[in-house]
């Protein structure tokens, strides 16, 4: 009778480590600002009452990706559709006594999502800001507008308008 050899089955080695996970998806972001220089101040802007008017004199673009900031036009343009966190803030002096509302406009139309207001009194500095998440589409043009309770001279010390996409 022939001898019987029993050989155990030996499994192969472990597979190699899996590849590194994918990089986090890129995110669109960008903004514009009015930089403050308390020693020199910024240009003033005359405002009529009765309608929202675009805040001008933006002086800097923020870093951006997938968004086109254009401080010279006091606006920024969305390049990729999506939901965005939008921040708008303004610090200003203003005369005469009254109130002022600040709001975000998209393609020239009022948007209720980002709006705030503050008192104005004899050129005492005032500030308001607002932020919210909203759907924007490629080509949308965003700017900041203000509505004074009376014809006024607006001195903007600082302003920021920036977006950051929520769902890359």
């Amino acid at each position, binding site marked *: 009778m*022939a001898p019987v*050899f029993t*050989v155990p*089955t*030996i*499994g*192969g*080695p*472990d*597979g*190699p*480590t*899996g*590849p*590194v*996970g*994918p*990089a*986090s*998806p*890129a*995110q669109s*972001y*960008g*903004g514009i*600002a009015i*930089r*403050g*220089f*308390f020693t020199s*101040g910024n240009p003033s802007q005359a405002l009529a009452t009765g309608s929202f008017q675009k805040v001008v004199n933006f002086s*800097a673009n*923020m*870093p*951006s*990706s997938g968004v086109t900031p254009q401080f010279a036009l006091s606006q920024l343009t969305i390049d990729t559709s999506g939901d965005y966190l939008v*921040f708008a*803030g303004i*610090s200003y*002096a203003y005369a005469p006594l009254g109130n002022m509302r600040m709001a975000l406009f998209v393609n020239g139309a009022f948007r209720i999502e980002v709006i705030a207001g503050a008192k104005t009194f004899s050129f*005492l*500095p*005032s*500030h308001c*800001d607002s932020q919210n998440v909203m759907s924007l589409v490629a080509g949308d043009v965003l700017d900041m507008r203000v509505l004074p309770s009376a014809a006024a001279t607006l001195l903007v*010390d*600082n302003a*920021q308008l*920036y977006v*950051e996409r929520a769902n*890359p």
Partner: protein
Amino acid sequence: MTFSVPNLAGGSPGPPGPVGPVGTGVYGDMLAVFVFSGVTQAFTAGVPQKIVSFGTNGLSVGVTPDEANDRLVITEDGDYEVYWQQTYTLVAGAGFTFDFIEMRINGTPAPEASLTQFEGPIAYFFVCASAGGILSLSAGDVLEIYAQTSAGATVTWRDAQLFAWKARS
């Protein structure tokens, strides 16, 4: 006689493991929350001082909050959304404004995320100041908030936040 012996080298290697998780975000924040109290800080006219109200480190990944020194430290290069807020009241002094309340990066002002000529409070009334922006930052950068008043004053800092959130680019 012929013996048949299986291949002792074993089978082929197993398949690669699963792909790792998507990278995490990079962020960090500090807080000051004094609902019924606060931190007082005296200012001399025209002298910038770091605001020292922070007392709690918040969540962080890749950004180092350092409430003991009232600052955030960046550990990865990139573009970041930064934001700060200070709520304050007046203890002593009157008729002043803040020449600025500003973010500084390594001691240098970042005017895109700062306020200038901001109102000083009337006694007992709260004032809220805030600003934010998107800034390009490098590992090792230190973020702090500085203020300067137009006249001598003592301010009580009430509530505050300072955060940095890296944009995925």
